[in-house]
C-alpha cells in the first residue's frame, strides 16, 4: 500500500492558506503542498524551509534569507526571490485578505537581493519573526498561479494537489520533482467527516487509514484496545478557557472573577467533556512550552471559597449571566459542566449555543456576552491580553508594556523570564477561567508511521509518513 | 325446469336476521319484479343469488339455478357462474363503472374473464353489444371513458356488460332509480326487448310500483325480509290479498284534496331571470364562457297558491330555487317578493317571509344540534325572537302541527326516521310563519307510504295556515295531486304553464307530452283493490 486516506472533521472552504483563517486549509496543504521560508516541526520547533539559512542584523531589524536552489512550483516555474517578495508583499498589502495580517505588521520592506537572496527589513525588532514566517499564512505562492489558488493551489511541496470532490474529499499526489527529501507515499486523500459518530464508524469500518484530530475522545479507549489501531495523543497550542467579559458587571470585579475560578473543577471538566484527555492550566500558556509555570494551584477548585468571595463582592445570592457556546464538543460539553458547577455556587449561567458565525458576530466582535468557552489555538498567543479591545476586554497597561518589551527582546533567558511574568500577571488578575490545554488526539492504523502526534500548528504533515512493512 | 328457484331462504348478518324464509322463482323469458319498501331485503336477496354477501353473512335454505344449488357452490365455481350464467345491473350508473378504464375494455372483460372468446373476437363482440344497447359505433367508440357518457348511457354500458355472455338470468337492482323519466322509459324498454330476444329470466328490483305494473309478468312483494305476497301481475293488481300490498299500492297513488286557493294577488314575481355558471376557460386568453342554467324565466306565484315546477334532472329547477332564495346572484332579470326585490344581500324582512325544505332528510340538518335548536334556526331573521316559555310553546305547537311530539325537541335527528326528519324540516320552514315555502324535491327520497303521509300533512297545513308554496319535483304523479298550477321546465326555460289538471289532461308543448308519456302510470285500480 503506498497511499493513505485520512479523515478530518472540517472541509476547507477553499485552498488558499493565505486568505482565510480556516484551519482545515492548513491541515491539508501545510508543508504538503505549500512551504514557507521557515517551517514548524512536529515538536513545535522552527527550522529552515524554503530558506536554507539566514542572517539577522545585530539590531534585529534586517533579515537576509538564502533560498534553496532548484526549487520549482508544481506548474514547473521556478521559485525565486521574486516569488518571496510577491508573497510577503501580498500578505501585508493594503487590500490584503490575509487572516493573520498582524504577523507581517512589523515588516517595513522586502527586497530582492539576487534570485536566491531576499532581505526583509523590519520597522521594529520582533523576536518572533522566524516563528511568524513559519505560519501557514506566510507560505510562498507564485504570481502566475495566484488567480486560481482557491481551487487549484500550486506550491513547492512534496505533494501536488490533484483533485477535490466538494463535500467529500481532496486528493494529493506525490511531487516527483521535489527539491528536498521526496515523500514516501504516492498519494493521499483527505476525507471530510464532520459528524463524530460517522468518524468513529468510518475508522472502525477501516474506510480510513487515520483520523487527525479525532472529535470524540470517548471512543479512543476502544481504538486503543483494538490491535488494528494506534491512538496518538499529543499536545496542541489550544488553551481552552472560560472567557470572561472583563468590562461587564459583575465580572469587572476581580473578586467575582476569582470566585469563578474557584468554582470550576478542571478535572471534572477534563473527565466529563474530554474523557480524561487534556492538561489542566492555570494561565494562558501551553504546558509543553519551556517557559510554562504551573499556576493551577492558585485557582484550585474550592466552591466554599468561591461563595465567600461572591459574598464579599456583595453577591451572596449569586447572579445570572450568559454562557455562549460555539459548536465544538469541548465547548458544548464543557459548557454544560461549567454551568452545572457555577450553579453550585449560585451563579446561574444560561447556556446559549451558537454557531461560529454567530459567535464571531455577537461574542467576538459585539462583545455582547458574559461568559464563553473557546480554545485559543494560535501558538504563543498570550499577546492577545495586551489588546484592550480584544473580546474579553482586559486592560492592564503594565501587561501591555511587558508585551512590548518582550517583542523587542531577543535574549532567550530574558524572554523566558518575561513570559513567566506574563503568565503570572494574568493568573493573578483572574482575567479568564483557565480550563485545560487541548490534547491532540489522532487515530491511525497500527502500521502507519510518521504522523505528527503533537499539533504545533494545524497541519497533517505527510512528508515523513509511510507504511511499516 | 324453473330457471331460478329460491326456497325458504333465510339470511343472517351477524346477529341481525334479515331474510326470513323467502321463496320465489323466475322462469326463462319471464320478468319478475320484487318490490317493497326500503330496507325490506330486496337487494340482499339479489346479492345472495349472486353469492356476493359480506363474509359475516349466514344463509340457510336453497337457491337453484337450472338445478344447480348455488348456496353449495365454492367461491371459484361462483366466479364461473357470475357474469356467465347470471348477470347483474346495479342502481347507480354513475359509480358502477370503473372510471379509469374504457367502456370497451370493461365490456370485453366479462367475455375475457370467462375465456369465452379470444381477445380480437371479444372486441368485435363488445362492439356488437354496445350497438345492441343503443350506443352506436360512430358516437360511442370502444375507447370512450365512462365520464364522457351520461347516466343513461352508462347504464346501457352496464347492461351490455351484464348480457355479454347471454346469461340465463339477469338481475337488475333498481336499474332506473337514478335516471330521468324519459331515460328510465328507454332503459326499461331495452331490458324488456333483451329478455324477449335472448329468452332470459329477469329479476328486477324496484320500489316504483308503476314500473312494476308496467313491466313485470309476476310480482313479489316483500316486507321486513319476508315475502308477503306473490302472483302474476294481472292477478295481483286486481286481487290484492295482503293488507301491506294494498297499503303500498294505495300510497303510490295517493291523492290529497287541497282547499280552494284564494283570489289571485301576486306574491312572488319573477321577470326574465337569467342565471349563468362560468365554464372553465378554454384557453388562457379566451373569453370566459358561460353555461346558462336558467334562461329568461318569468312567472308569478300568487298568495295562497300551490305552484308546481316539473322537469328533468338538470333542467335548472334547483338553480332557480337558489336564485329565489337569494343564495346566488342573477345575471339578468329580477325577482321580487311582495314587491321587495330579492338580492344576495341579506334582507331579514325577506328572509323571514320565505323558507325552504330540501330533498335529503338527513343532510338538511346539522347532526350535532338538537331538534329545538334546528327548527328555531330561522329565528335568526327575527328582530326580537321569542325566548323562554314563548319559545318553547312555539316549538311545541309547531312540532305538533307536523305530527311530532313536543318531547321530540330534545332529540337529535339521527333518532328519527326519514319521514319524521322531513316533518322536522317542514317544522323548521313553518316556525316563522313564512308567506312562501319552497319545496325542492321534498318527498323524492321518501318511501311511498311515508310520502303519502307527508302529502297529507301538506294538505292539512294548507288548510290550517293557508300556505303558498312552490313545489319542485320530477315526479309528475306527486305534482299532480299537490299543486293547483304547474310549470314545466326544459333546459332552463319554462315551456308550459297552466292549471295542473289542464297540463295532465291536454299537454300542449311536445316536451310536456313526452314527459307525461314516459312516466309510468299505475293502472286505475279502483275496482280491483276494492
Amino acid at each position, binding site marked *: 500500500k503506498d497511499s493513505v486516506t485520512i479523515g478530518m472533521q472540517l472541509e476547507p472552504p477553499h485552498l488558499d492558506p493565505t486568505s482565510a483563517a480556516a484551519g482545515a486549509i492548513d491541515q491539508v496543504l501545510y508543508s504538503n503542498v505549500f512551504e514557507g521560508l521557515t517551517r514548524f516541526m512536529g515538536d513545535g520547533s522552527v527550522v529552515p524551509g524554503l530558506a536554507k539559512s539566514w542572517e539577522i542584523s545585530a539590531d534585529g531589524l534586517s533579515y537576509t534569507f538564502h533560498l534553496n536552489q532548484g526549487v520549482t512550483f508544481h506548474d514547473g516555474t521556478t521559485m525565486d526571490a521574486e516569488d518571496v517578495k510577491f508573497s510577503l508583499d501580498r500578505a501585508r498589502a493594503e487590500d490584503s485578505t490575509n487572516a493573520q495580517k498582524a504577523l507581517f505588521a512589523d515588516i517595513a520592506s522586502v527586497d530582492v537581493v539576487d534570485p536566491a537572496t531576499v532581505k526583509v527589513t523590519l520597522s521594529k525588532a520582533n523576536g518572533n519573526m522566524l516563528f511568524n514566517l513559519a505560519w501557514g499564512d506566510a507560505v510562498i505562492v507564485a504570481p502566475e498561479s495566484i488567480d486560481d489558488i482557491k481551487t487549484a493551489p500550486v506550491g513547492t511541496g512534496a505533494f501536488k494537489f490533484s483533485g477535490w470532490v466538494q463535500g467529500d474529499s481532496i486528493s494529493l499526489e506525490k511531487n516527483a520533482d521535489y527539491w528536498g527529501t521526496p515523500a514516501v507515499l504516492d498519494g493521499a486523500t483527505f476525507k471530510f467527516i464532520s459528524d463524530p459518530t460517522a468518524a468513529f464508524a468510518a475508522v472502525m469500518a477501516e474506510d480510513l487509514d487515520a483520523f487527525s484530530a479525532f472529535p470524540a475522545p470517548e471512543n479512543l479507549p476502544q481504538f486503543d484496545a483494538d490491535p488494528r489501531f494506534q491512538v496518538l495523543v499529543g499536545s496542541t497550542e489550544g488553551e481552552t478557557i472560560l472567557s470572561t467579559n472583563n468590562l461587564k458587571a459583575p465580572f469587572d470585579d476581580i473578586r467575582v472573577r476569582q470566585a469563578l475560578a474557584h468554582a470550576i473543577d478542571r478535572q471534572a471538566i477534563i473527565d466529563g467533556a474530554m474523557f480524561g484527555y487534556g492538561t489542566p492550566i492555570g494561565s494562558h500558556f501551553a504546558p509543553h512550552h519551556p517557559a510554562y509555570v504551573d499556576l493551577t494551584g492558585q485557582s484550585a477548585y474550592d466552591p466554599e471559597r468561591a461563595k465567600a468571595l461572591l459574598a464579599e463582592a456583595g453577591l451572596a445570592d449569586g447572579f445570572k449571566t450568559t454562557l455562549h457556546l460555539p459548536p465544538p464538543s469541548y465547548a458544548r460539553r464543557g459548557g454544560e459542566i461549567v454551568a452545572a458547577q457555577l450553579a453550585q455556587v449560585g451563579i446561574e449561567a444560561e447556556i446559549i449555543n451558537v454557531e461560529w458565525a454567530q459567535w464571531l458576530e455577537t461574542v467576538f466582535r459585539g462583545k455582547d456576552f458574559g461568559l464563553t468557552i473557546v480554545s485559543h489555538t494560535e501558538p504563543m498567543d498570550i499577546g492577545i491580553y495586551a489588546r484592550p479591545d480584544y473580546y474579553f476586554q482586559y486592560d492592564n497597561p503594565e501587561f501591555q508594556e511587558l508585551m512590548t518589551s518582550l517583542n523587542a527582546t531577543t535574549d532567550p533567558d530574558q524572554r523566558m523570564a518575561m513570559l513567566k511574568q506574563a503568565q503570572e500577571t494574568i493568573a493573578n488578575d483572574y482575567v479568564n477561567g483557565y480550563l485545560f490545554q487541548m490534547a491532540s488526539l489522532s487515530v491511525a492504523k497500527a502500521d502507519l508511521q510518521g504522523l505528527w502526534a503533537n499539533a504545533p500548528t494545524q497541519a497533517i504533515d505527510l512528508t515523513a509518513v509511510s507504511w511499516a512493512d | 325446469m324453473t330457471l331460478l328457484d329460491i326456497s325458504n331462504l333465510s339470511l343472517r348478518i351477524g346477529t341481525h336476521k334479515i331474510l326470513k324464509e323467502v321463496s320465489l322463482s323466475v322462469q326463462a323469458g319471464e320478468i319478475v319484479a320484487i318490490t317493497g319498501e326500503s330496507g325490506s331485503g330486496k337487494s340482499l336477496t339479489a346479492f345472495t343469488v349472486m353469492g356476493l354477501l359480506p363474509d359475516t353473512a349466514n344463509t340457510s335454505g336453497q337457491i337453484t339455478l337450472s338445478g344447480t344449488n348455488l348456496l353449495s357452490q365454492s367461491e371459484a365455481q361462483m366466479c364461473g357462474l357470475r*357474469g356467465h350464467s347470471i348477470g347483474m345491473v346495479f342502481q347507480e350508473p354513475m359509480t358502477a363503472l370503473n372510471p379509469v378504464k374504457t367502456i370497451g375494455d370493461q365490456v370485453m372483460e366479462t367475455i375475457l374473464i370467462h375465456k369465452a372468446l379470444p381477445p380480437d373476437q371479444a372486441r368485435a363482440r363488445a362492439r356488437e353489444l354496445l350497438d345492441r344497447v343503443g350506443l352506436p359505433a360512430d358516437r360511442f367508440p370502444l375507447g370512450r371513458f365512462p365520464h364522457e357518457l351520461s347516466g343513461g348511457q352508462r347504464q346501457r354500458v352496464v347492461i351490455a356488460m351484464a348480457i355479454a355472455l347471454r346469461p340465463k338470468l339477469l338481475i337488475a337492482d333498481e336499474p332506473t332509480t337514478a335516471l330521468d323519466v324519459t331515460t328510465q322509459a328507454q332503459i326499461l324498454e331495452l331490458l324488456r326487448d333483451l329478455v324477449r330476444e335472448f329468452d332470459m329470466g329477469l329479476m328486477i328490483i324496484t320500489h316504483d310500483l308503476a314500473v312494476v305494473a308496467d313491466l313485470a309478468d309476476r310480482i313479489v312483494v316483500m316486507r321486513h325480509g319476508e315475502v308477503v305476497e306473490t302472483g302474476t301481475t294481472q292477478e295481483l293488481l286486481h286481487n290484492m290479498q295482503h293488507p301491506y300490498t294494498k297499503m303500498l299500492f294505495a300510497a303510490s297513488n295517493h291523492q290529497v284534496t287541497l282547499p280552494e286557493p284564494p283570489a289571485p294577488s301576486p306574491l312572488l314575481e319573477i321577470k326574465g331571470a337569467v342565471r349563468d355558471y362560468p365554464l372553465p376557460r378554454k384557453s388562457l386568453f379566451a373569453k370566459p364562457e358561460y353555461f346558462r342554467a336558467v334562461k329568461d324565466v318569468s312567472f308569478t306565484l300568487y298568495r295562497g297558491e300551490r305552484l308546481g315546477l316539473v322537469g328533468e334532472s338538470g333542467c335548472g329547477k334547483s338553480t332557480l330555487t337558489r336564485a329565489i332564495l337569494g343564495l346566488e346572484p342573477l345575471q339578468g332579470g329580477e325577482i321580487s317578493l311582495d314587491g321587495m326585490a330579492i338580492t344576495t344581500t341579506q334582507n331579514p324582512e325577506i328572509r323571514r317571509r320565505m323558507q325552504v325544505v330540501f330533498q335529503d332528510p338527513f343532510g338538511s340538518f346539522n347532526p350535532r344540534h338538537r331538534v329545538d335548536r334546528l327548527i328555531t334556526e330561522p329565528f335568526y331573521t327575527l328582530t326580537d325572537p321569542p325566548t323562554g316559555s314563548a319559545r318553547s310553546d312555539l316549538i311545541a305547537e309547531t312540532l305538533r302541527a307536523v305530527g311530532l311530539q313536543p318531547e321530540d325537541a330534545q332529540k337529535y335527528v339521527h333518532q328519527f326516521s326519514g319521514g319524521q326528519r322531513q316533518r322536522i324540516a317542514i317544522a323548521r320552514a313553518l316556525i316563522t310563519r313564512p308567506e312562501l315555502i319552497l319545496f325542492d324535491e321534498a318527498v323524492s327520497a321518501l318511501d311511498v307510504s311515508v310520502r303519502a303521509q307527508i302529502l297529507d300533512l301538506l294538505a292539512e297545513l294548507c288548510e290550517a295556515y293557508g300556505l303558498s308554496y312552490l313545489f319542485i319535483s320530477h315526479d309528475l304523479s306527486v305534482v299532480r295531486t299537490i299543486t293547483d298550477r304547474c310549470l314545466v321546465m326544459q333546459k332552463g326555460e319554462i315551456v308550459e304553464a297552466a292549471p295542473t289538471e289542464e297540463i295532465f289532461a291536454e299537454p300542449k308543448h311536445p316536451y310536456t307530452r313526452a314527459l307525461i308519456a314516459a312516466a309510468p302510470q299505475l293502472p286505475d285500480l279502483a275496482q280491483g283493490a276494492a
Partner: protein
Amino acid sequence: MIRYALKRGLSLVISLAVASLVIFFVIEIAPGDPASFMLGINAEPETVAALRTELGLDQSKLQRYLAWVGGLLSGDFGMSYTYRTPVAGMIADRLWVSLPLALYALALSTLIAFPAGIYAAARRGKAGDMAVMGATQLGVAVPNFWFAMILVLIFAINLRWFGAGGFAGWDKGFGAAIHSLTLPAIALALPQAAILARVMRSSLLDILGEDFMRTARAKGLTRRQALWRHGLRNAMIPVLTIIGLQFSFLLAGAIIIEQVFFLPGLGRLVFQAISSRDLIVVESVVMILVFAVITVNFLVDLAYALVDPRLRSRT
C-alpha cells in the same frame, strides 16, 4: 391539457418569484458575516472590509437581490462566498448524490410499500394485515436518524457489509456508487415505506367499497382479480400524492441522514453554507429545492391525468 399545463406554469412562476423574495430577505437578516467567518478571530477589521468588497457584500441588499435574481434567470447562480467557485457547479455536483439517493430511497420505499399495502388490504382484518399494520406503525414511529445509527452499527461496524458512509463517486462505477448509497437509502426509505404502505392499504380499502368493484365481481372476477384489475389504478391517486410529497421530503429532508453517512449531498451543502454564512449558496439551494418541489407537484398532477382519464379531458 395544454391549458392546464400553462396555468400551472404561470402559478409556478409566481410561486418562484415570491419564494425568491422570501428566501433572500429571510436569509439576509441572519446575523453573522461570511467575511469575518472566513478570516477568523485574528483578522484585522480592514482585512474583513477588504474581503467584503471583494465578495460584493458592500452593495445594498436590493442591488444584490436584483443581481442574484438576474443571475438565476440567466442560469448563473453566482459565486460561492467561501468556496469561490460557481454555485451552479457546486449544486450540480451535490445533486448527483442527492437526486440518486432520493430516487433510490423512493424506489425502495415503493418496492416495500406496494406489496405490503396490497397484501394487507387483501387480507383485511386477518393476521397478515395485523402484522403488516403493526410493522408500519412501528416504522412510522422510529426516527430515521436513530434507525440510521443502528444500521451503521450492525451493517458497517459489525458485519462490515457496507462502508460506514461516504460516497464512492460515479466514476468508480455504477455498482460501487449504488453500494455506497444503500444504507442511507434504506434508512430513508423504511419510515417512508411504512407511511406509503398505510396509504396504499387504506386507499385500496376505500376503492374496494366502490360500486364498480361490485360490478367487477358480478362479472365473475375473483376478489384478487378485481383488486388488481380495477382497484389498483384507482387507488394510485392518493398514493401518487404521497409519493410526490415523499420525493420532495427525500430531496431536502435528507440532511440528517447525509450527516450520519457523511454524504456530499445538497442537504449537507446547505447546512455547511448556513453555518459559514455562505448566503448565496443557501439562497440558491433553497431556491432549487423549492423549484424541485413545485416541479414534482406539477409532475404528480400530470401523473394523475395518466391514471385518471377524467382529469385528462380538462383540455
